[in-house]
């Protein structure tokens, strides 16, 4: 679970966070923010046909592959999370 789902006792806010994936909160880390940004961007590229075509032409790949690689990159767009400070 990402930390935003656990971070508060306020159940209503928790509910809203669960509902709107990608919403930030006060304790958001840089990594989490960046990951959300990348996922939003990648989802937007996959969702806009002109952008997938544009990338496909630039890189000379098929649109199918561009969509696949973009979707797959959503898994960990910024690499594995940094190690947690134990404090």
């Amino acid at each position, binding site marked *: *679970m*990402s930390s935003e*789902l656990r971070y508060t006792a306020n159940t209503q806010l928790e509910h809203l966070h*669960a509902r*709107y*994936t*990608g919403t930030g909160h006060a304790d958001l880390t840089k990594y*989490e923010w960046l*990951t959300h940004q990348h*996922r*939003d961007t990648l*989802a*937007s590229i*996959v*969702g*806009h*046909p*002109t*952008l997938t*075509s*544009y990338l*496909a*032409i*630039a*890189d*000379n*790949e*098929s*649109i*199918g*592959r561009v969509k*696949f690689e973009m*979707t*797959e990159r*959503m*898994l*960990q767009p910024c690499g*594995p*999370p940094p*190690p*947690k400070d134990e404090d």
Partner: protein
Amino acid sequence: MHLYNLTLKEPTAALHAVVGSFCGGRQQEILISSGVSLQLYRWDASGGVLQNILSSSAFGAIRTLAAFKLTGDDKDYAVVGSDSGRLSILEYDPKTTSFVPVHQEPFGKSGARRIVPGQFLATDPRGRALMIAAVEKTKLVYILNRDVSANLTVSSPLEAHRNTTIVHHVVGVDNGFENPIFAALEFEYDDGANAKSSEPLLTYYELDLGLNHVVRRWSSPTNSRANLLVPVPGGPSASSGDKDGPSGVLVCCEDHIVYVHMDVPQHRVPIPRRGRSSEDAGRGLLIVAAVVHKLKGGSFILLQSEMGDIYKVTVEHDREVVKCLTIKYFDTVPVASSLCILKSGFLFVAAEFGNHHFYQFVQLGDDDSDTQYRSSSYPTFGMAAPSDPLPIPSFQPRSLRNLVLVYEIKSLCPILNSQVIKVLPHADTPQILTACGRGPRSTLRMLVHGFDVDEVTNTDLHSAPNGLWTVRLKDDDAHDAYIVLSFADATRVLRVGEPIEEVQDSGFLVTSLTLAMQQMFMNGLLQVYPGGIRHIGLDKHVAEWRVPLDKRIVSCATNTRQVVVALSSAELVYFELDNGGKLNEYQERLALGSAVLTIGIGEVPEGHQRTPHLAVGCEDQTVRMISLDPETALQTISFQALTAPPSSICIVDMVDGSISNAQPTTFVLIGLINGILLRTVMDSIHGQLSDIRARFVGVGPVRIVPIKVQQRRSVLAISMRTWLQYTYHDRVHFTPLISERMDYACPFSSEDFPEGFISVLGTVLRISRIPQIDQILKEVEMPLDFTPRKLIAHPTNHLLYLIESDHRAAQGLSGATGAQRSSGEPGDHPSTVVWPRAPAGTWASCIRVSDPTTATTLNRIPLDNNEAAFSAAIVTFTSHEDTPYLVVGTASDVVMTPRSCSSGYLRVYRFTEGGTNLELLHKTEADDVPLALLSFQGRLLAGIGTSLRTYEMGKKRLLRKAENKEFPSAIVTLSTQGSRIIVGDIQHSIFFVAYKEPTNRLLIFADDTQARWVTAAAMLDYCTVAAGDKFGNVFVNRLDEVISEEVDRDPNGDGILREKGILMGAAHKTALVAHFHIGDIITTFHKTSLVAGGREVLLYTALHGTIGILVPLQSQDDIDFLSALEQHMRARFVSPIGRDHLSWRGYYTPVKAVVDGDLCEVFSQLPYSQKAAIAGELDRTVSDVLKKLEQIRIGACGF
């Protein structure tokens, strides 16, 4: 500034295509989405064409399409997943020939967002439910049903959400009439500390119809590189009690296909690869498109790889138990975004780029020699070690064996660059040249406004006729019997047949010229000549009416029952056929008082005795409408004053939905001697003329000839150019013909040649036909080898210089392969679909000289050393006597992300042999990729990466003169006026740069407040720039005049240097003056005039094939009127996908100072009551509004 956006050509990309019986019945249609519009095509077997039935703009982004049929129904509904935040279900309405939204269920925010559904659509094969899913988390299931009056109902959505889950694909599993199941290929991410890349899961979501909820029924991990699901048919077959198939899905992974179903053993086969694609062997092969077709007692599954190869996959089964999965190579076709199989045995390939192909199956790949690979030949059906790859077999691609190409839908997608220049020597308007396509399917296309004319034969008559007719013999004859030619003192009659020969016994008077020829009702023929009228019965009995000796007939008009002749004494004589088939003269004659130049009479309406109105064009520049009704016969109804004497009049009934959908409208077309054609609408009861519209046809008198095109009444207007007025998609249009000039013409029909026309120019007679009226822009294609990057036209010699480069194309292609292919048929050889693959960072590139008038390549210069060309310009150097040179910006070993290269180069070529050949003078190294070049004040201006430089020509290399390195990302566009340069940055919008000659400085003095991803830019005037960005916006930025003058007054640029920057940028900011979302990425702008003597417009060409214009509105009245109309249209017109128009056009930034002409033009498609209501609120009549819209369109583009 206020602009009016008008799309001249809708995007031609096909992002999705589905097949279904949208019109109902047995016939199938193909529904294509171009991203922002829907097109419906039907195969017309007799004509051998895919006919466009409808085209409708969505005013929103269509992301996916699906079709479903309710159980027991014979009509398909279309479902659209879009960015509107609604589920839109469309039904085809034959009455209005449009898609009508039957349900638009809102479920989320608009826009293509991460968790708002719309990316994936899956329907239950039995039409009981559908699932719409987002890229992440959200999945909604809607139950489809009928109410008591058999209307489609949609339930409220059932949620099947799952947090932190990303979806690759969703399909509906075919399991007969058990609870509907949707299969989703998804993976879960975990951002927690112990995150590891998880395996994708194949999950079955079951809709429990009894309990009305969705459960996650079953889930199983699959191959980590799975990307696509294909449902395998199942459930009971309609004909027998047997099962159609085993059900389940095929999971397409890199290099493998796996058959998966709940609780049954899996089967796996490898995807055979091309034998020689070993260069990029490290990479797997993906399946990008698939199609399943149910056959009697089985299924037919085709999968297409990213190389364009199609594989046939068979699931061998015994009842529900799968015995074996087999795969074999089928054929190679262009890489598709969607494949569709029609029941009639056709395969439609919606190509991701380039023309869309329509193939016929000649065999199903059952009995040829291609090797079949079976899962049963591997241990445990290939699943012994699921994570290890199976040995990959290879095959040699070959030319088509199972498919035959029968039709192509032309597609400009993608347009990468364009030019608007006058290519055709005799044309008075410029042509649009586009560099389109990708890889081996790239083309250079010239677009010419007009319809092509197929000339079937031509003959020399040895003398020039002055009239030409074709006549049938009997009322029910399907084809013409005679061709009649009138000469100065003779008439020749030819019999239609094989061969066409002259006849002597026709009964016609052959010693005089002829004025008119007509087949009469009850099987007689009528000839009008200056001395009288001759009525010839089928039995060759002749009845003759003679003119008094001192007079002669000067003009006449005939139809099957009525004859009107005008005598030289300005009298009108009227004849009517009685029931016995005899021609009777009306007892009175009408004296007109002015010489008659031309008469027009309509056809007799079906079941009527006569047509009640006559139009007479007189020398005093009037047209008089005269009644032929027995009670008011020969009384003048109305006058219409003209600006010039009329030369020809024609009354014709044509369907125009913008005036009336119910019945054809009667048009009175009046051609004037000054080349103007007036189109007026006649009130069929009172005979009054209204709604006059003028079009310029050509220099010289206009002659009007009614003909038939595609079985519909059309009209040729002949002058120096020939135009066709015709009905297409229920609208009357007016388009020129691309043909030889003609003097006379008449319709023609024979057994071998059912529909066409005969024309005469001088002494030459031609028989021709108009093959299609779908595309008003004719495309002339020329094949290219690689993806074109830039197209430039030489200023004087009319040749084109193209640079082409392809990433990931094997090296060595630049030389041999391209040249080899140019001799072969395009699309015929498998290698022409995609070039053999190479690893990233490998490039193939060339420079091409071509002649656009003949569409030929004159010269081709390949680039070696992994060098690729990115920019080009024709530059004149003051130091070299202003001779033009071609400068090409190249770079070697370019890596796309992050952008890098081993070295950039500026190649300078000298034009030799009149420009047909290029001689390399020298190559100058640069530190980055030169993406933009421009000729600037007798020097070369180059945008090389983040630096802007000027170069002077040297003996061995270019000499760097000035430089500015302050650009943030990369310079992609350059334009100039005077000493001002406008620079477009790839990520940071537009910069204004001043060149100060005394100090040789390039200084940025203004920039934009928004960071835009510029793709194209054009300078509108000294202070204004229009640009397009990567997200489909077009915007106009303007610099304050005061700042502009201040900057120009500063001689050395010291003032600019001293000024303090604002917002971490330049000292001055430009203001946004107009903004609009096009929905397509603009690749080129041209400030040009498309009409001879017309005003300048801003033409843009965009990636998916859109061509549009932005027209500056000149008067406040126009602005007020069009804005008001747009506002009313927004309120009344419902987009088929339910997208709010204002939010679509203001997708990223609110729309500013641009009126959407496309929406305004939808006005003509509204039902009459709505049109009248809007027009009423605008204080205009409906025809005023339509006329205004037409005026703007014609004034701006002439289309």
